[in-house]
C-alpha cells in the first residue's frame, strides 16, 4: 500500500469540495464496505451505483414497480446485495451484479431507515425503523416482521408493546425510535423517545439493559463506529453523545445474561440500568452552544477518529468535524442548499454529502504539493537547520568516483509475492466480496472512429454538441469536474493543431473561442465564493509546460 510514502503530518479530514455528482435527484447515500462504490437512492425509485474511482455511473438499479422515493439504502457486508426502503412502505432487496430485484416486502408504514444484518453472507434479516412506531426486525425470506420492544417494561411479550402510547382510536402515536445493529449483529441498540438506550437481543425480544441519557430527549439517530468500539447518539436536545462500548464485540447476549445474574438483587428498571452501566460509558458530548443547531446524519469516520455531523438549519449546508476527544476541528460550508444526508468514506478522508436539490458533493483534502517527492534525496525540514560543511567538502579529488550504490546487503531475500493483510481482510468472510463492478466500454458511435481528416466544421460541431468522446454521456451521469473542461478543449485543440498546424498565437485565439463556447454551453451551478473549487488542484497539475496550451486557471468559474 502507499501508506508509507504519504505524509502522515497532514490532518486526515476533508477540507474542500472536490467534485459533485449529478444524476436525477438523489436522496440518500451509502458506501460499500471498501468505499469503491457509492449507492445513491433517488426520488424516482431507482438507485444509482457510482464507481467512486472514476466518478462515473457503474450501474442503475431500476424497475417499473419501484417508483416511490427511496428513503434509505444499505449494502450487504459482502457487497453483493443492496436493500432499499421506499416511500411506498416497501423494502426491496436487489442483487447488484445482475441488477435484478430479489424480493419486495410491504410494511405497514414507510421505513425511514433499513439496515441489513451486518454479518451474514446472504441477507436474511434486516432492521427497519418506520417514521412513527417501533423498529421492526424483518425476515426477508418469509416476509414476517417482529416489532422490537421500545421500553423496559415491554420485554418478553413478542407482540406489540405500545399499548401505553396508543391514542384513543387505537393507532400508535408518534414515537420515533432509532435503532442499529452492533458490529457483528448479535445485539440491537434501540434509542427511544424517552431518551433511553435499550440493548435488545432480537432472538428472544428481551431487553437486556438500559442506559438513560440525561435530559431524556428523544433520540433521533444511533450509530456504531466501524470497529464497534464507539456508539454515537443524536438527541433532540441538539447534543451528540459518544459512548464507549464496554461489551466485547462477540458473544454479547451471554455476557449480558451473566451481568444480569450478578445484579439479581435489583429488579426491573434498576436492574436494567445497572447492567446498562456496564455496557456503555458516556465519553463525550458535542453541541454547538452558540447556534444550538439540530444535527443531521451524524456518523464516525472510517477509522473512528473523527465524528462528523451535518447542519441544515436555515437551509445551510454545513458539516462539522470533531476529533473523538471533542475538539471541533473544522466546519465545512457548502452552497446554500440544505443538507439531507452525509457519509464518511470507509478508508479515505473523504466526506460525501447530499443536498436538498439532489446533488451529491464530494469533500476531500486540499491538494498541497509534496516537494520532497520531486527528487529522491529531497527531505522536508520542519525548521531551518544550520548546515555545517565538512573540511574537505569542496576539495577536488579526481580519483574517487561517486559511489551511487547504497550499502544495502544485496544478498537479502526479496519477496515479491506475499501480500500483507490489512484492516479489510476479515477471516470470517464466507463469500467473496464484490469490490467493484466490471467496466464495460460503451462502444463509440461509428462516425467517431473515422480517421482524422474530418472537415473543420464537423469538428467544431462535435465540440459544441458535447463531449466528442462519449455521446452516450446523456445516459450516464456526469461527474462535473473543473478539470474536464480544459481536457475537452485540449482534444479539440489537438485535432485542430494536427489539421492545420496553426501558429501558437492562432492556437491561443482558437482556444479562447472554444473556452467561451464551452462556458456558454455548460452552465455550472453557481457556487458561493466560500466554496473553493479545485483551483489549486488544476494549478498543480497543469503547471509547467506552456506550449501544451492548457491553462487551467483561466477556466475556473466564480
Amino acid at each position: 500500500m502507499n501508506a508509507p510514502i504519504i505524509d502522515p503530518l497532514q490532518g486526515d479530514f476533508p477540507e474542500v469540495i472536490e467534485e459533485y455528482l449529478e444524476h436525477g435527484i438523489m436522496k440518500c447515500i451509502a458506501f460499500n464496505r471498501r468505499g469503491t462504490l457509492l449507492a445513491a437512492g433517488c426520488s424516482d425509485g431507482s438507485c444509482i451505483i457510482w464507481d467512486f474511482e472514476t466518478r462515473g455511473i457503474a450501474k442503475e438499479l431500476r424497475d417499473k414497480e419501484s417508483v416511490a422515493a427511496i428513503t434509505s439504502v444499505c449494502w450487504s457486508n459482502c457487497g453483493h446485495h443492496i436493500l432499499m426502503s421506499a416511500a411506498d412502505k416497501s423494502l426491496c432487496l436487489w442483487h447488484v451484479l445482475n441488477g435484478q430485484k430479489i424480493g419486495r416486502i410491504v410494511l405497514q408504514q414507510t421505513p425511514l431507515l433499513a439496515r441489513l444484518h451486518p454479518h451474514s453472507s446472504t441477507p436474511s434479516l434486516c432492521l427497519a425503523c418506520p417514521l412513527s412506531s417501533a423498529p421492526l426486525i424483518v425476515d426477508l425470506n418469509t416476509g414476517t416482521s417482529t416489532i422490537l420492544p421500545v421500553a423496559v417494561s415491554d420485554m418478553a411479550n413478542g407482540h406489540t408493546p405500545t399499548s401505553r402510547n396508543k391514542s384513543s382510536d387505537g393507532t400508535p402515536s408518534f414515537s420515533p425510535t432509532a435503532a442499529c445493529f452492533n458490529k457483528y449483529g448479535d445485539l440491537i441498540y434501540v434509542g427511544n423517545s424517552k431518551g433511553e438506550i435499550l440493548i435488545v437481543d432480537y432472538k428472544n425480544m428481551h431487553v437486556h439493559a438500559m442506559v438513560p441519557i440525561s435530559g431524556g430527549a428523544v433520540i433521533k439517530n444511533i450509530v456504531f463506529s466501524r470497529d464497534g468500539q464507539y456508539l454515537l447518539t443524536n438527541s433532540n436536545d441538539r447534543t451528540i453523545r459518544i459512548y464507549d462500548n464496554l461489551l466485547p464485540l462477540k458473544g454479547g447476549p451471554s455476557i449480558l445474561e451473566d451481568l444480569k445474574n450478578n445484579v439479581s438483587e435489583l429488579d426491573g428498571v434498576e436492574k436494567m440500568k445497572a447492567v446498562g452501566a456496564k455496557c456503555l460509558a458516556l465519553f463525550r458530548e458535542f453541541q454547538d452552544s452558540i447556534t444550538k443547531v439540530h444535527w443531521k446524519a451524524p456518523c464516525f469516520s472510517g477509522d473512528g477518529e473523527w465524528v462528523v455531523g451535518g447542519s441544515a438549519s436555515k437551509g445551510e449546508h454545513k458539516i462539522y468535524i470533531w476529533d473523538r476527544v471533542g475538539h471541533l476541528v473544522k466546519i465545512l460550508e457548502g452552497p446554500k442548499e440544505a443538507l439531507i444526508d452525509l457519509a464518511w468514506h470507509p478508508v479515505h478522508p473523504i466526506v460525501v454529502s447530499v443536498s436538498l436539490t439532489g446533488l451529491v458533493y464530494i469533500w476531500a483534502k486540499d491538494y498541497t504539493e509534496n516537494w520532497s517527492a520531486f527528487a529522491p534525496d529531497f527531505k522536508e525540514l520542519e525548521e531551518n537547520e544550520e548546515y555545517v560543511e565538512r573540511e574537505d567538502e569542496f576539495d577536488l579529488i579526481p580519483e574517487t568516483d561517486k559511489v551511487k550504490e547504497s550499502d544495502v546487503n544485496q544478498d537479502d531475500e526479496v519477496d515479491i509475492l506475499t501480500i500483507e493483510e490489512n484492516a479489510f481482510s476479515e477471516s470470517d468472510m464466507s463469500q467473496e466480496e464484490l469490490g467493484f463492478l466490471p467496466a464495460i466500454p460503451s462502444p463509440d458511435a461509428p462516425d467517431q472512429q473515422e480517421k482524422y481528416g474530418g472537415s473543420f466544421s464537423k469538428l467544431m460541431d462535435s465540440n459544441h454538441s458535447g463531449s466528442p468522446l462519449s455521446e452516450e454521456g446523456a445516459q450516464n451521469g456526469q461527474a462535473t469536474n473543473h478539470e474536464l473542461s480544459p481536457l475537452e478543449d485540449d482534444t479539440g485543440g489537438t485535432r485542430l493543431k494536427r489539421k492545420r498546424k496553426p501558429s501558437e498565437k492562432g492556437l491561443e485565439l482558437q482556444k479562447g473561442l472554444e473556452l467561451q463556447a464551452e462556458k456558454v454551453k455548460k452552465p455550472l451551478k453557481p457556487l458561493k465564493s466560500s466554496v473553493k473549487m479545485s483551483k489549486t488542484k488544476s494549478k498543480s497539475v497543469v503547471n509547467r509546460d506552456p506550449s501544451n496550451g492548457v491553462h487551467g486557471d483561466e477556466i475556473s468559474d466564480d
Partner: protein
Amino acid sequence: MANTNTQAPPPYKPYRLHKTLRSHERAVSCVKFSNDGALLASASLDKTLILWSSSSFSLIRRLVGHTDGVSDLAWSLDSHYICSASDDRTVRIWAARGSFDCLKVLKGHSDFVFCVNFNPQSNLIASGSFDETIRIWEVKTGKCVRVIKAHSMPVTSVHFNRDGSLIVSGSRDGSCKIWEASTGACLKTLIDDKDPAVSFAKFSPNGKFILVATLDSTLKLSNYSAGKFLKIYTGHTNKVYCITSTFSVTNGKYIVSGSEDNCVYLWDLQQKTMVQKLEGHTDTVISVTCHPSENKIASAGLDRDRTIKIWVQDS
C-alpha cells in the same frame, strides 16, 4: 545451473524453443499473455494487433484500425478487452472475444502514445506518451479523467500497482516517479539522474517493489518506500530500445528480459545470477511475457526478425 541454497528450490529446467509465429509484416513491438492464460496478443509496427491461442498458437484474429504503428498493449482483468497505444496518437480499446471490434478510440495525446496499462479493477487506463504526459482514461465512457504533467521527455512506461492506488512511470529524462492514481499527485521520485534514461518500470506482483530498466544495460529491483535498490541484474545489452522485462513466478522466481544482442535473458531473482540465455531471434528482443500459470515465455523481435517465439520448459 543449479542454485546452492539452503531452501533447495527446484533445479532449473532450461527453456527450449517451441514455436515461431510469423504473421506480422513489420517489427513486433509488444507481446502479452492474457490474465486468464487463454490468449496471447501481439502488437506491431505494421499497425495491427494479432490474437493467438495460447495452447495451439494458431492465429485467431488480426485487429485492424490503427493508422500508424502500435507500440504497446494491455489486457483487462477479465481478459475481455485489450487496449493498445499507437503512433497515431490514440489509444484504442478492443473486444478480445465475440466481435473483436474496436470499441473505443481515446483521443487526447498530442504525440505518439508509447505505453498503456489497465488498472487492476480495469475501469481506468493509464497511457504515457511522447508528449511527456500521462493520461488517465475512464474505460466505460472513454473520457480522459486526468492529465499528469509527468516528465520532461517522452514517457516510456506506466504501470499500476496491485490495488490501483499508485502508478509508476519511467521516462527518457532519466527519472522514475510514483504517482497517486486518484489525485495525480507525485508521491516519490526514485531516480533523478539525467542519464541514463529509464526505459521500463513495473511493480512486483505484490506491489511492494519496482523493477526498473535503464539504458545502461542494467535492471534494478527497488523497494520504493525506502528508496533503496535491492538487486541489480546485468549481463544483457540495453542501450537503445525500451525493452520490457517481467517476473516469472510459475516455477521458481526469475526476472526475464529481452536484449539487444538478440537473446532473452533469465536471472534468478534472489541470486541475481543469469540462469539462461535463449537464442534464436535475429534482431533485438523488444518484449517478453510469461504465461500466468504455465511455464511458457513469449518473446518478440524487431524489424529484421518480425517473429514471436514461444519457449517452454520440458516437464
